[in-house]
């Protein structure tokens, strides 16, 4: 069952967080793009893409994450990903995303880095 994607953006102490609630699929591309532009506007050093732990991310959703990670890399900004299940960690690894981003367990973990 597809869960509608809702996105929140906030910034705290040099970390811009894009919170993704629901499933990440092609239909979320525009909303994620807008959220990403907002996150970049904070000029934070790090961006955290935070899923809700139950999010399903299909190939189109992974493409959205890839585009964001690459754009951030070009801007010299580091992207962290939190709240993904073991299964999606594996998929991120298989498609090579883990070479360009760090997967963490929680927002607190990024703040400690």
């Amino acid at each position, binding site marked *: 069952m597809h869960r509608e994607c809702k996105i929140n953006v906030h910034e705290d102490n040099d970390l811009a967080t894009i919170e993704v609630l629901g499933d990440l*699929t*092609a239909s979320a*591309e525009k909303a994620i793009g807008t959220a990403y532009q907002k996150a970049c506007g904070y000029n934070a050093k790090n961006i955290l893409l935070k899923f809700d732990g139950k999010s399903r991310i*299909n*190939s*189109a*959703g*992974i*493409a*959205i994450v*890839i*585009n964001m990670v*690459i754009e951030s890399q070009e801007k010299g900004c580091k992207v962290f990903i939190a709240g993904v299940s073991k*299964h999606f960690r*594996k*998929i991120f690894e*298989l*498609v*090579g*995303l883990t*070479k*360009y981003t760090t997967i963490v367990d929680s927002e607190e973990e990024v703040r400690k880095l």
Partner: protein
Amino acid sequence: MSNVIQSEAEESETEYIHDGEQTEDALARRVYHLNTLYELNQEISTLRNVHEVLEASLLYIIGVFGLRRVLIAIYKNDELHPRRLVYRGMRKDTATRFLKQLEPHLKATSVRVVCVAQDATSPSYPSPLGRGKDEGSELAKLLKDNQFCVWLPLEVDEQTWGGIVLGEKLSETAFTEDDLELLSTIAINIQNVLSNVSLIEALNQSVIKETRIRNVFQRYAPEAIINEVLNPSNEELLLGESEAVRRMFEQMIAQLEEQHVLEQDLNWAHRVQEYLLPNQSPQIPNIGIAARSIPARGVCGDFYDFISLNPYEVAFSLADIAGKGMSAAMIATMLQSATRLCVGSYYPIPAILSILNRFMFRHTETTRYATMFYGQVNAQERTLTYSNAGHTPGIFCRDGKIQLLEIGGSFVGIFEQCSYEQETIELHPNDALVIYSDGVTDAGATPEAPNPEDGFGQERLEATIVANASLPANALLDAISDEVTRYASGNKLFDDITMIVMKVE
């Protein structure tokens, strides 16, 4: 000494775990690929605009292979098919310049796939040019000069409409034959959708054009002429043809849309299943093998498969997924892929079923499960070893007597942990073995009131096998099929029928 033994045992356990992890990786990758095919097909089948189809396809391709740069172009560029270009990871001028350079080469080539390695010096990044043409072609050189790795044409009605161009993977690994196979299947899906969507778009354009002419006419034509034309007695005469064309277009669009979605789903599932079914039965000395699968609804929730382990030994499986139609077919495809990967790893039979059980449990809804008969037949040792995971008992016939093959365990995918047992049977000349799905014994019952007693039934099946046990495998399979078809005549099949027959010579 005991330390050495313990260390060797630990090493062996580590190797086993490592093998298991590699199998899990391969399974996860295969499931991810199949899900991508399914979801891409679902998504683009609902779209009615070429640009949207290309944009959606682009995203799925980036995501499934993990790519930085991708370009999809349609350059047919006639009245009905204007030029289109979608891309990621590059600037617009780069994409259009590359496309311009690409076009003359494409007109001069009949290459299906071109795949080049960007890093020619690295042995870890070889070029899998198995199905493509030479790396030295102009097209390959152009790809390489522009840091692209793969070119795949999009062909509709035997004409090249455009193509897909892929850059390097983020993982910095080479494109494999499996990747190119997947990309080809994705391209076939896109081609089918493009063919229909282009037609729908063209028809829509015609309707819009016709409506626009009518509006302009009503707005600007002299009043006298409008009165003349729109006079009810003349309208039929003067606008009749135009109106009829518009109505025809609208009807055609509605029909095309409906047909398009249904056909896409079925075609996709057919293609994946055909791609996975064995082309022919395996050949091993002194044991004849035959198999058949008849889907009840265009796609099949059963599958059978053979994997040759060595010149004398074949692994075989027959499974039946709970449920019917597209969703069951999708899970059948997934389970079949997973089975092939496990068998390739040479696990013991109970371990294979345990892995498949856990895989099904983790990757499908809780209500989804399969029954499965898995076995290995060895012509040199003349043995059959099998395990039955909740499937209809295999029927083993020797000298007119029947033995049911029931040793095994529970369904695959119901519980996270399940253990299975296996049985080995020594084979004698003229022994016959029939593995079948319950569609065989249910054939003849009606879907409205599926009473098993109305079906062909196990007793009739056993009797047919005993009566024809002297025949070779192919003829025995035909005899059973004929008997089942004769019994069920007049009643449409409501469950898939799948059988594997083996006969010791």
